């Protein structure tokens, strides 16, 4: 069972719907016992960083503890950003600090938010992208992006006038800036791959 962390921010249900659609047992929860029992965690997120971190509250520690035990964790969009150390969206905020790096605004020369389908180059050694070939379009909707400063993290990029971090993987920690639950068939494949990682 995959636990989707319920922390009262928008659109967590979509992730559950997509998981159910691919036949993956998933529960929306912030109950410590459930999170303990889960084979993997998903940290979804549609919100501003500070609001999301505050809403996560005591569940932050549960996620950090699960990460330390080697449980696979997938952060999506703002959930992906929360994996990092800090953000400056509407003021400075601390993140979960599972991966070294900061969350910064997309440079103003680009249209903000970065919203729509963009082509992601898929490194073949990143588990989330198994069976998807060298590049695929995924759906993005965000105004901030991650600057990865962690030598242990693998990074997949998309081109938005600069190499924008589309996905990261550091041991059992996975993050996608795009929305796999809203990226059609290729997005569902990313979730299937995460399911396989959790069951593996």
């Amino acid at each position, binding site marked *: 069972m995959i636990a989707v962390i319920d922390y009262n921010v928008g659109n*967590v*249900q979509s992730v559950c*719907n997509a998981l159910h659609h691919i036949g993956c047992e998933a529960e929306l929860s912030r109950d410590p016992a459930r999170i303990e029992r889960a084979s993997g965690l998903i940290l979804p997120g*549609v919100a501003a960083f500070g609001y999301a971190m505050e809403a996560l509250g005591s569940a932050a520690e549960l996620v950090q503890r699960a990460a330390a035990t080697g449980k696979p964790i997938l952060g999506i969009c703002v959930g992906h950003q929360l994996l990092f150390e800090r953000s400056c969206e509407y003021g400075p905020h601390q993140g979960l600090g599972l991966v070294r790096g900061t969350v910064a605004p997309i440079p103003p020369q680009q249209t903000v*938010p970065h919203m729509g*389908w963009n082509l992601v180059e898929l490194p073949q050694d990143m588990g989330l992208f198994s069976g998807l070939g060298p590049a695929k379009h995924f759906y993005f909707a965000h105004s901030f992006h991650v600057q990865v400063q962690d030598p242990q993290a693998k990074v997949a990029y998309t081109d938005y006038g600069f190499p924008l971090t589309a996905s990261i993987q550091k041991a059992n920690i996975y993050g996608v800036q795009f929305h796999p639950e809203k*990226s059609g068939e290729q997005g569902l494949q990313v979730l299937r791959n995460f399911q396989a990682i959790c069951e593996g």
Partner: protein
Amino acid sequence: MPARRKGNHRGLPLRKVRFMLTKRVIPCLDVKDNRVVKGVNFLNLRDAGDPVELGARYSDTGADELVFLDITATIRSRKTIVDMVKRVAENVFIPFTVGGGIRTIEQIDELLRSGAEKASVNTAAVRNPNLLAEAAKRFGNQCVVLAIDARRSKSRPGHWQVCVKAGSEPTDIDVVEWAVRGEQLGAGEILLTSMDADGTLAGYDNELNRAVSDAVNIPVIASGGAGTLGHLYDAVVVGGADAVLMASITHFGNYTIRQIKEHLRDRGLPMNL
């Protein structure tokens, strides 16, 4: 955040920088009493099917996004729309926006929690512009769509006036100024409907699209008037739109999403195909 309006040496607006980002094809489903309907100039509604079924069909056949507009937008229709959003979310795995009658942060929260990716506000934002700022702060500006119903001004040529209450009530607000203000307040996208062109199948109002897309730095969705594949191409190339919204030409089977995307790709536009 101040609007980023830059000029080049000739004082013309700089084009937005879009790298590899595909142009979006977005069918719009106007919903009334749990049915998809489509009219001409906002009148003479024609039935186009079940919203969940039609939405899933578009999702499966390659639409980039969907927009559902509750055109009854009464207090009573709210619960129906939330139920519909939940059912759509179980069957549709592309982003969808929901609009029509949204007045409060709580309503936006409920729609996003039910599975919508974005909420679009129109009349309520005109009445209370702070709603855009509050929603952007709470949900992130990518969740906030400012829908503008625009009508060509009879008294000021080359200008458009904002209309509210499903287009029934003209205001003296200038569309371009309102779009710029909307961006400043926190809207992440503008859904720009030409009331003059809507449902006519005679082409988008690309002067309108160009005026707004040059004035703002957020994506503009062109809406109202699509009748041919060429119209869709023109909205992007002539109008400067980042996405094209259509209803009649796809609901009634004139064109498939794939035909539309192949046409735009073959004419050189980046598409998710």
